[in-house]
């Protein structure tokens, strides 16, 4: 048996889905957080079925890709569970009517966000609505789990609606139903209403946006730094270092075989001390980079992002940045892939499905890969350049920002077509719920650990093999003119470019043992961000863009890296930064 959850975007399908299946899915307070379908097993309270979570759709007449998917799913389902936002009954019932008109399938209507109705002054007569629609109607609060039991028993007894719906008088019918079942009570303006208006209306809106971005950065930096200096470094230094020292002594007494293993596993240790970011062994740098340099920042970034997502701030930011994105051939909702990309380019690339036009997708994908550094990379840039002073970290990010603006403008000018316009529902602010926030954070951290650490270890292993086998000298020799003449980097930096395809954080980490100058570190970090996406992002982008467009995009990335890296090197030299 196949049960389908279908409803408008951002009505809480994903929360309900994870309640019903126990599966872990990312849910946020903005439309489009589920871009593809999710499926799981609904097996509780005497029911055993496949449960499918469809991407949000407003109608059964497709206006975009996500809606096409949803429609196909409705046709395949045995039982349809239509999730309806009870704070916006009229608009949501439109889809319900479409479903009733299109398919004669057992249907259950879920009134989600039920807890919000009372403090919004909305009163809904559930039994009357049930009578009028001719199907079971169940109020549910997905976040607390209230109503789940009733929902399951309604699914078991579900039947098709007896209502006759004609397309022409759909809105009339909805109007008469809403009038009969819904009562609106007048209530005074709350603080939330005030905040809702202030964060959309200039000039206040810009002040709020600047403050929230500024504080987000401050908090991310504060928590990230704090975790590194107070938790991760002490743990490594006090507990891990003695272990590594013993292992090192063991390998050193083992002749040539021991020395080989020492090189690969532990790396270079000088004068009895370990500098974890210099050693470049699998057990030293290979674990230190992901766990003690990157993870603290990934943690703090996703904590802050999760809060902003659940609060519902991203769509507001989309409105305020719409004009800027318009100049780049996009619209304000491109803020979603951009912000997700700052965490990790892979979810950023996946969310490109929010866009319908090919041109839009191409521009957004190229800008994401070129100018949006992921948190792992950012953490390493802060770790390596930060020791010279925060202003040098800023130079890297300012350069990336300029590249983003200029490249986006050029793409918009020279690619045929026009910038699309924004048309977006702005969800109400919702108070983030702690356990939901932490669950989402844990899912993302878990994903990072499972995906990142194997690749980091592989990256470090490849670094060692490249140097051990002297392949690196051959590759360096080929690329020397570009790397030395244009970017002003030493030949050996080619190793970082090779490894950067695997993991950008390891690649940035490689710059440190090379003994580069400050200018070379800045140019190197910037070029590593720009020249090509990492393999995980690359694979998603091929899938989203197709091979031909990905090839074009890759040419743009490489040319941008050559030009921008060269220009940055020139400017820094002219400014006297060595």
């Amino acid at each position, binding site marked *: 048996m196949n049960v389908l959850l279908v409803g408008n975007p951002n009505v809480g399908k994903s929360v309900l889905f994870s309640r019903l299946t126990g599966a872990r899915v990312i849910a946020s307070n903005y439309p489009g957080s589920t871009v593809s379908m999710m499926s799981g097993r609904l097996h509780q309270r005497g029911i055993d079925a496949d449960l499918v979570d469809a991407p949000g759709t407003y109608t059964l007449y497709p206006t975009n890709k996500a809606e096409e998917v949803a429609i196909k799913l409705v046709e395949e389902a045995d039982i349809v569970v239509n999730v309806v936002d009870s704070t916006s009954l009229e*608009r949501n019932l439109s889809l319900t009517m479409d479903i009733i008109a299109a398919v004669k399938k057992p249907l259950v209507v879920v009134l989600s966000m039920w807890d919000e109705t009372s403090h919004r002054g909305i009163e809904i007569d559930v039994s009357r609505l049930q009578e009028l629609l001719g199907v079971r109607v169940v109020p549910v609060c997905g976040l607390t789990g209230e109503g789940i039991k009733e929902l399951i028993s309604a699914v078991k007894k579900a039947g098709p609606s007896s209502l006759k719906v004609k397309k022409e008088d759909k809105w009339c019918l909805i109007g008469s139903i809403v009038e009969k079942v819904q009562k609106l009570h007048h209530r005074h303006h709350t603080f939330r209403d005030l905040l809702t208006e202030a964060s959309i209306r200039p000039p206040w809106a810009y002040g709020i946006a600047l403050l929230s971005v500024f504080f987000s950065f401050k908090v991310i930096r504060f928590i990230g730094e704090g975790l590194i200096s107070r938790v991760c470094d002490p743990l490594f230094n006090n507990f891990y270092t003695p272990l590594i020292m013993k292992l090192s002594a063991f390998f050193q007494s083992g002749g040539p075989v021991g020395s080989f293993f020492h090189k690969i596993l532990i790396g270079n240790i000088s004068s009895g001390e370990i500098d974890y970011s210099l050693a470049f062994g699998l057990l030293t740098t290979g674990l230190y980079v992901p766990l003690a340099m990157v993870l603290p920042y990934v943690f703090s970034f996703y904590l802050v992002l999760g809060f902003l997502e659940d609060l519902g701030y991203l*769509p507001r930011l989309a409105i305020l940045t*719409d*004009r800027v994105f318009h100049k780049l051939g996009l619209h304000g909702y491109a803020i979603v892939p951009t912000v997700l990309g700052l965490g990790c380019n892979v979810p950023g690339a996946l969310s490109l499905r929010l866009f319908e036009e090919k041109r839009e997708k191409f521009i957004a994908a190229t800008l994401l890969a070129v100018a949006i550094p992921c948190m792992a990379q950012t953490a390493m840039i802060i770790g390596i350049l930060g020791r010279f002073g925060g202003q040098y970290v800023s130079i890297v990010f300012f350069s990336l920002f300029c590249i983003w603006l200029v490249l986006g403008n050029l793409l918009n000018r020279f690619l045929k077509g026009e910038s699309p*316009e924004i*048309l977006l529902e702005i969800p109400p602010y919702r108070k983030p719920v702690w356990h939901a926030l932490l669950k989402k954070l844990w899912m993302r951290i878990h994903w990072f650990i499972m995906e990142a650490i194997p690749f980091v270890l592989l990256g470090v292993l490849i670094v060692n093999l490249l140097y051990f086998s002297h392949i690196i000298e051959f590759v360096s020799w080929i690329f020397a003119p570009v790397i030395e003449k244009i970017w002003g980097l030493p030949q050996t930096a080619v190793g970082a470019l090779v490894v950067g395809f695997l993991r950008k954080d390891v690649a940035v980490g490689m710059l440190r043992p090379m003994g580069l100058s400050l200018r070379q570190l800045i140019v190197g970090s910037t070029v590593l961000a720009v020249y090509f996406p990492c393999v995980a992002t690359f694979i998603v982008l091929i899938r989203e863009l197709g091979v031909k467009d990905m090839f074009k995009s890759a040419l743009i990335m490489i040319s941008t890296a050559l030009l921008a890296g060269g220009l940055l090197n020139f400017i820094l030299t002219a400014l006297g930064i060595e």
Partner: protein
Amino acid sequence: MMMSLIELKNNRPARVVAISGGRGFAARLESLGVRVGSSIVKVSHAYGPVVVKVGSVQIAIGRGMAARIKVNEQ
């Protein structure tokens, strides 16, 4: 008096009287609750998209699109 959504002033309630443009455009608007006959209140338009309130829902509409929606102030 009929005017476009751009010309309507903030905080003013109005009724949609015409939507010009393709069927796809009208369908997208309708799915968000904006159709001929809908009552809306304009929330903001200073820089970038026009924001309107339809029922309890707020919607951001790009300026080019907003220019094609005609309303009567009430």
